[in-house]
């Protein structure tokens, strides 16, 4: 694990260059960014009315108030574009065209290259989608913002760990491509499972108690649920640190597993075409 971190430090200039290149590549597609923004706004509206209907006549569900659930539902759609969810398709494409050969002949690890690209994309989404949406939605829906700096700080750190959790889960799933010729089935399975277990559309607090106990042990909840439960105050300020530790442990575990799986995947690689 220590070598992983030192490699990162050594690769930082390379990483910055790849992040920069990916920022530029994403910015080239202006229209795509606008569409993403509009789509998120529509979804925020749809989910708002859904929750208003579901809460009719109930002051709270499992200790979460209507205001908390509404804030969660809106913010979840706002932070979701930041999280990696496209690697299976990307790696599948590289496999199909055979261009994977360039990714695996660079003097950097494949996973690191993908991480830097994902960071680049997340930065673009943060500035072009998430921050504008955040401003629009908080003003429009009058979402209550946290009033203590500890919560803001906890939220920010948690969000970074969420990003890493999402990335490593996505990366692990994308390595599936090394074993099969067509991974599109895996792609949809992964989307459904992650969206459900991470609490993208449904906050985990509405799950039945038994299901909650299982889901709260898995790494997925570190993606959407943890930062938003912190932000909405469902997780109380004195419970923030254990939550962050939970996320961190899973990031380290996933990172380690993905390294191992990558070594196995490379032995399986066959480059298609001439």
């Amino acid at each position, binding site marked *: 694990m220590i070598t992983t971190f030192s490699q990162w430090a050594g690769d930082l200039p*390379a990483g910055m260059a*790849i992040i920069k*290149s990916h920022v530029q590549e994403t910015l080239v597609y202006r229209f795509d960014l606008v569409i993403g923004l509009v789509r998120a706004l529509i979804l925020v509206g749809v989910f708002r009315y859904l929750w208003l209907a579901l809460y009719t006549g109930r002051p709270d569900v499992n200790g979460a108030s209507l205001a908390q659930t509404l804030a969660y539902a809106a913010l979840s759609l706002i932070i979701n574009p930041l999280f990696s969810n496209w690697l299976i398709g990307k790696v599948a494409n590289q496999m199909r065209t055979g261009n994977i*050969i*360039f990714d*695996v*002949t*660079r003097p950097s690890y494949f996973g690191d290259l993908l991480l830097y690209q994902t960071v680049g994309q997340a930065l673009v989404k943060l500035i072009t989608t998430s921050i504008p949406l955040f401003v629009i939605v908080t003003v429009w829906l009058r979402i209550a913002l946290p009033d203590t700096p500890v919560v803001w700080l906890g939220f920010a750190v948690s969000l970074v760990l969420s990003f890493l959790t999402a990335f490593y889960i996505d990366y692990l799933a994308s390595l599936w491509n090394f074993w099969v010729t067509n991974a599109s089935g895996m792609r949809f399975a992964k989307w459904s499972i992650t969206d459900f277990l991470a609490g993208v559309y449904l906050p985990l607090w509405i799950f039945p108690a038994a299901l909650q106990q299982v889901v709260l042990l898995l790494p997925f909840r570190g993606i959407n649920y943890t930062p938003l439960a912190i932000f909405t105050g469902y997780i109380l300020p004195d419970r923030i640190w254990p939550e962050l530790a939970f996320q961190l442990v899973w990031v380290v575990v996933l990172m380690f597993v993905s390294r191992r799986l990558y070594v196995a995947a*490379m032995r399986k690689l066959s*480059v298609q075409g001439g």
Partner: protein
Amino acid sequence: MCCNKGQGTREKVTRLFSPRYKTVRAVDGIDLCIKRGEIIGWLGPNGAGKSTTIKLLTGVLHPDGGALKVNNLIPSKRRVENARQIGVVYGQRSQLWWDLPLIDSFEILKAMYRIPPAQYRANLDFMIELLNMQSFLEQPVRKLSLGQRMKGDIVASLLHEPPILYLDEPTIGLDVVSKNAILNFIGALNANRHTTVLLTTHNLSDVEHLCKRILIIDHGKIILDVLPDDLIQRYGKQRQLIVEFSRAPDGFVLPITINKAVIARREGNKVVIVFNRDDLSALQLIASLSEAALPTGVNIVDVSIKDDNVESVITRIYEDREGKGTARQEKQAR
């Protein structure tokens, strides 16, 4: 190993439940040592195992057996270190960033390979000058022509000054001018920096101009390892004599002294005669021809000689192999 999916719908459904695999040996028992500064022409028909060898050398594929070292490194074990000492160009693919200006790709690679700024500048200037690339550096890669893109790919693979360069069909689809620019550039690189080059191509004139050693591989095995001159010496003994007469030499019979030669074809006033350099000299042949033609009132107007070149020799070697291959298959079929 590859999976046989079967032919037709019925068989494919069956294979869905019980897949069948067969092992194909792409590279089989290659024993080879390449010295620093060599330019190797790595030839062979399609599917012979050329690209597989390059993938093994880059460390992308793990060999099932045998030993492989590049500059004392085992590529599949130390891929990242190996990546720093090699440059790879694939004529059929591009490593450049599709949406960005060409120069941006170079800047990214500079960071990725941690090339010191001064070295980067010097290398880039040298290559841009030699390949005449100033005019399209700012263009997005997707707008470049094939020749421009290929120049870009070659520069991209050489910015970190690798001592070893693998070129997998770098001239495929290029026009003569672009092709020559690239070949001359590779020649200059080898002369200046002693870069070791492994070149696969189907363009045999590339090999003739550039390569110091020719290796032919087929069915995963090396079938020939020679110097270009030796190749001609050993296999290129066939000569063509093209004789033009004053009128069509109908009913013309080759004199008895040249029974070692064969008339390949007749085209109007021209006759093409094939003979072996060792058996007969061109002079002898011409002398006896004119001697035999004179009494019939026909004169020799013009004479030209075509020697075998690398291209014609290798074509013959491929054709012979293929002939044997089909013969073998037919035998098996029976």
